[in-house]
């Protein structure tokens, strides 16, 4: 009966609960009925609610960022995807298959071939050479030695570490170690990458380099990525969509624009209040109805504010917003200034 759906997601997480503690079952019932929150559960059942009713999906080739403060349950969620921990309730589907339904061998295969993982503190094995670290997923799957070596070297090449194969992790800087971590995750050419705060432990400049390189690489190889961070700027930069977590719950999921421009909860709006909206505002948000003067330069409704601004600095007095044929509205320099003023006030 279970037909493969044509447009299934790479990762589907449905109503996931994870409660740590001996009395997790009781706590689950109480939490589901809304009788206890995270603090109450700890008091009444000595249980920690790690993840509460989290649902999200990641489409093939998409980067979903999960963002939240320390202890909000991000690591707990990501560990469910390759079943490093098992849910108290709810489901995780990888390309439509329930990970809880896999037998041990299938699970190991999924971890070695289908999913690559990158860890916050690199987690490279100090007793193995760089090449052996990178080839580990292939080694456990008993890939022929020559193939292992070739895959490891090509993965290292991709992250700019060709020629380092025979060194050991402690001979590399932090940034280089995390490149190895990335190479290790990609060596078996998995479809899915799980990245648990991969760049958090790095210095700001090196972090920026790795972010840029990862985005570039990601565009080339198109891997479905679940990317975890506690840094909103990083989330805005890396994510096609962002899920914001608080106390084990996902407060809001959406594109960076929608999160910044239309926060749905107080928590999210407090979070994004430090981010300037200017980059995310588009013409449709600030245009006023009416027809622009003839000869005014024309722009589409989704044109971002910086582009509109550039038109004014080049001498335009007014902009016409059209969808190619019909007029949608107009934007004057006052509209732009008002948008800037509003943004300055909220920060």
């Amino acid at each position, binding site marked *: 009966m279970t037909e493969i759906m044509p447009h299934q997601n790479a990762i589907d997480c449905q109503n996931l609960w994870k409660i740590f503690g001996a009395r997790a079952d009781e706590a689950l019932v109480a939490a589901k009925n809304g009788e206890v929150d995270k603090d109450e559960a700890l008091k009444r059942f000595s249980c920690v609610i790690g993840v509460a009713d989290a649902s999200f999906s990641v489409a093939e080739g998409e980067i979903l960022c999960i963002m939240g403060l320390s202890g909000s349950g991000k690591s707990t969620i990501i560990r469910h995807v*390759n079943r*490093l921990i098992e849910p108290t309730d709810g489901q995780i589907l990888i390309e439509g298959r329930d990970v809880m339904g896999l037998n*041990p061998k299938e699970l*190991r*295969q*999924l*971890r*070695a*071939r289908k*999913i*690559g*993982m990158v*860890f*916050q*503190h690199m*987690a*490279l*094995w*100090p*007793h193995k050479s760089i090449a052996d670290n990178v080839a*580990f*997923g292939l080694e*456990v*799957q008993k890939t022929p030695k020559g193939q292992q070596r070739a895959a490891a070297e090509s993965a290292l090449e991709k992250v700019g570490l060709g020629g380092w194969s025979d060194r*050991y992790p402690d001979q590399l800087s932090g940034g280089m170690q995390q490149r190895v971590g990335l190479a*290790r995750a990609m060596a078996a050419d998995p479809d899915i990458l*799980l990245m648990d705060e991969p760049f958090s432990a790095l210095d700001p400049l090196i972090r920026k380099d790795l972010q840029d390189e990862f985005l570039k690489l990601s565009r080339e190889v198109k891997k479905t990525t679940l990317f975890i961070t506690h840094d909103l700027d990083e989330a805005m930069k890396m994510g096609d969509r962002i899920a914001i977590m608080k106390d084990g719950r996902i407060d809001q999921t959406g594109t960076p624009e929608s999160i910044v421009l239309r926060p749905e909860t107080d928590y999210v709006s407090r979070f994004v209040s430090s981010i300037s909206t200017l980059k995310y505002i588009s013409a449709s948000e600030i245009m006023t109805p009416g027809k622009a003067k003839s000869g005014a330069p024309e722009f589409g409704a989704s044109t971002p504010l910086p582009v509109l601004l550039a038109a004014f600095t080049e001498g335009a007095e007014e902009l016409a917003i059209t969808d190619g044929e019909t007029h949608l509205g107009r934007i004057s320099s006052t509209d732009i200034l008002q948008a800037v003023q509003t943004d300055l006030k909220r920060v």
Partner: protein
Amino acid sequence: MDPLLNPFDYFTVPFGAWAEAGLDYVVSVSRPTLLAAKVPVQAFLEFVQDALRATPPTIGIAVIVVLGYLLSGWRLALTGLVCLTLIGLMGAWQAAMTTLSIVIAAVVICVVIGLPLGVLAARSDRFFKYLRPLLDLMQTIPSFVYLVPVVMLFGIGDTPGVIVTCFFAVTPLIRLTNLGIRGVREDLVEAARAFGASETRILIGTQLPLARATILAGLNQTVLLSLSMAVVASMISVAGLGRMVLEGIGRLDFGSATVGGIGIVLTAIVVDRYVQALGAATPRDRAGG
């Protein structure tokens, strides 16, 4: 008045008799099992003993020198050369080989039993909870006291000597194996799991290699405790350097006693240095020359 002040002159409990009766009972019930347990130990000990005794001293010293050079360098090789040559010159070579074979047999058995127990303790909090008081107890009992039950159960001689040495020396290996495995960084283990390694593979390929230094520290203690017990066990008629000391003292032959004593010290130095070198040399150093 006297019975109140010196009660033990008037009243004692026949604990000695009870113990004997109790042990007699245990022995009579478990004799076949105990004898069966003794057989492989005896076979293994004889194998090691024959090998060591059959090796001419020149060959033995050469092996030790080469091994020392490979493990660490010229200093270690020289230490081995000097110590073994002195033992030979003093006329204690045979006795030293006998003691060494008891130590080797005991250490191998300790590893075979202690390592799995340590691994089990690291993987199961429950098992460790029950094992721990036993280990504490075993470590507090002085070496001497172990001799009593072992003689009762297994008799006297070299094989019971190996058995008593194992009981006395196995504790640190179990403890430090447990400690070492528990001390391996959690994310290194999780990374191995995340890339599809089975639990056995994680143990052999990740946990044991990363716990290696700690486990070898435990092994070092086990080896040194084995040596000290192999000497004390001369009291239950175990041959070797210990017996030279014991008999020397008994016959007021201080020359023989001193030779035995110095032989023990020299053997201990060699054993300690070599096991330590084993712990210090990382696989990478050896690969890289």
